């Protein structure tokens, strides 16, 4: 069983929900990212989604875009992201790590090379934002070859026909995008999320994690009640921004991220 599957199974057995934080690798530095990963695990993160910096992150709102830009100031690359995961694995061989990024850096490295390196580094899942199921076949085969889960997005606009196709290909978990828009946007319509997740669940037994628009402990709790897990990104990346925006130290930004995550974990566990 993959690290992701066993993690989510253990949570389900304990009647708990997954808390999935997202931060951008190298924002503001690779060292800070590593510290944040360990700190988040300490506060109850179940799976870590690590953003791979890209020059043109089309699906991201302004907060996460700036995170990518801050990482790119130091030319943090896909290769360096894989190195970071390997470093994380030296101390943590339990917590699943999912890379979330865009197609071009992976294409440039080559699908097979990427799959091999990711597997060696200890990556558990890959979510490629601009690679829908229709175009994902070649990368999917390479990920399958090395036993890495292929995580797909489902959106409020996904038709039933496509949802079936995506669910048939997906492994690990499904990531339901809770609203139309970019990351960090708008406000959540809980009823809408509820009915959509229920609809898509008929196509798969895989767990669902829901993201986009989770800002605090309350919204994390609400979302977690509708699925197997909640993904939280922009609000964490915003806290990392304090290092460059207001001169905070990386240590204090990591502390802020970890303490917010702790509040979310507490709220979710009260369900």
């Amino acid at each position, binding site marked *: 069983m993959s690290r992701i599957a066993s993690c989510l199974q253990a949570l389900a057995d304990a009647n708990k929900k997954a808390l999935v934080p997202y931060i951008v690798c190298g924002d503001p530095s690779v060292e800070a990212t590593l510290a944040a990963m360990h700190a988040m695990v300490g506060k109850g993160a179940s799976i870590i989604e690590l953003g791979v*910096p*890209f*020059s*043109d*992150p*089309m*699906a*991201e*709102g*302004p907060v996460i*875009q700036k995170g990518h*830009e801050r990482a*790119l100031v130091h*030319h943090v*690359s*896909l*290769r360096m992201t894989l190195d970071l995961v390997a470093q994380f694995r030296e101390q943590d061989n339990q917590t699943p790590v999912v890379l979330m990024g*865009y*197609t*071009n*850096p*992976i*294409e*440039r*490295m080559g699908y097979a090379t990427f799959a091999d390196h990711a597997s060696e580094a200890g990556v558990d899942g890959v979510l490629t*934002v*601009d*690679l*829908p199921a*229709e*175009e994902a076949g070649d990368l999917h085969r390479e990920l399958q070859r090395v036993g890495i889960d292929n995580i*797909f*997005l*489902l*959106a*409020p*606009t*996904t*038709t039933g026909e*496509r949802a079936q196709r*995506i669910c048939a290909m997906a492994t690990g978990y499904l990531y339901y*995008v809770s609203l*139309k*828009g*970019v990351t960090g*946007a*708008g406000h959540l319509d809980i009823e809408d999320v509820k009915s959509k997740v229920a609809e898509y669940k008929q196509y798969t037994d895989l767990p669902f994690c829901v993201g986009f628009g989770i800002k605090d402990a309350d919204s994390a709790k609400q979302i977690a009640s509708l699925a197997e897990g909640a993904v939280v990104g922009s609000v964490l990346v915003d806290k990392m921004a304090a290092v460059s925006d207001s001169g905070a130290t990386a240590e204090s930004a990591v502390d802020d991220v970890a303490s917010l995550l702790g509040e979310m974990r507490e709220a979710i566990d009260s369900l």
Partner: protein
Amino acid sequence: MSEVEKSTDTTYGEYPDADGHFGIYGGRFVSETLMAAVTELDESYARLKSDPDFLAEFDRDLAHYVGRPSPLYFAERLTQDLGGAQIYLKREDLNHTGAHKVNNTIGQALLAKHSGKKRVIAETGAGQHGVATATVAARMGMECVVYMGEEDVRRQALNVYRMKLLGAEVVSVTSGSRTLKDAMNEAMRDWVTNVDNTFYIIGTVAGPHPYPMLVRDFQCVIGREARRQCLEQTGKLPDALVACVGGGSNAIGLFHPFLEDEGVAIYGVEAGGDGVETGRHAAPLNAGLPGVLHGNRTYLMSDEDGQIIETHSVSAGLDYPGVGPEHSWLRDTGRASYVAVNDDEALAAFRKLTRIEGIMPALESSHAVAYLEKLAPSMSKEQIIVVNLSGRGDKDILTVADIDGIKV
């Protein structure tokens, strides 16, 4: 059909395939939220493109609003000057709004109308596509938002004001390199957020399927007219076609109706900037590699980490790190050749055409004209070259004056 008009049995017209692929290029590389929108657009376009009423409406607008057909003009003095093949200019600069861009915005605005969308958005670099979009939105009473990189807003102040006069909101984009590619990212973000009521009018033959196909189809009026006019005026097909390539919509519009005419050589001219060898250029087909950006797989300028790199060209309209996927495919199949012309060569062509033909070309189109310096003398006087004069140069006067050190 006369002998000379008969096509060979190659099948360029059948591409892209149903999923939008030209060989390995094209496709749909967008986030999940947009998949429904591009699929819906594909279905509605498939329905409308064979709807006689829709096509008649498009043709009527092209005739009476744009002023088509545009002339195919024999540039006699330029021909004499270069001392080789006869040069004909396809005068897209004479269209309403001054460039080929309007052919496409008319078509897409009609698609928006038929889809019941009341709000249109667009990205723009030099501002020509933004102006063409704002123009058709004004005419059809649609809300219009144009995304433009902060750097381009500064460089193209006149077009920004023009769009505002037409009633469009111009949003200055401050992310990334603050140019056309970032404007396109921002337009995609708007679209993903307002997908229910908004139609995204993409300005070139790039983006997720069906955009490269439908923009091509709307721009093909250029090549169909040129083919007919050349036969009427000279009794034969041209021996060569030349067009500038940024995203490549004017070029594909001219090239596509000739793809199956094997005797017609095809040249796309990319922006060489300071010189392809310097790395400061916008010539992905000359010096890039296949990759994925803005919804399609195509030749791109990206570094070894896969990050998109900044482009350089005196012409804002060519300053884009990618290119339409059909061009990538035509490059690989060898049907078309892609060359590059540097900034200084394009500027010299701008001045020459202005002085000896009284036609001031856009700096984009000046790249195509500049390539004639190499191509025309290498051909015989009986041979014919058709060049797409894709836009007029009025918008570039301040740029040229600035280079000359003149304050206008």
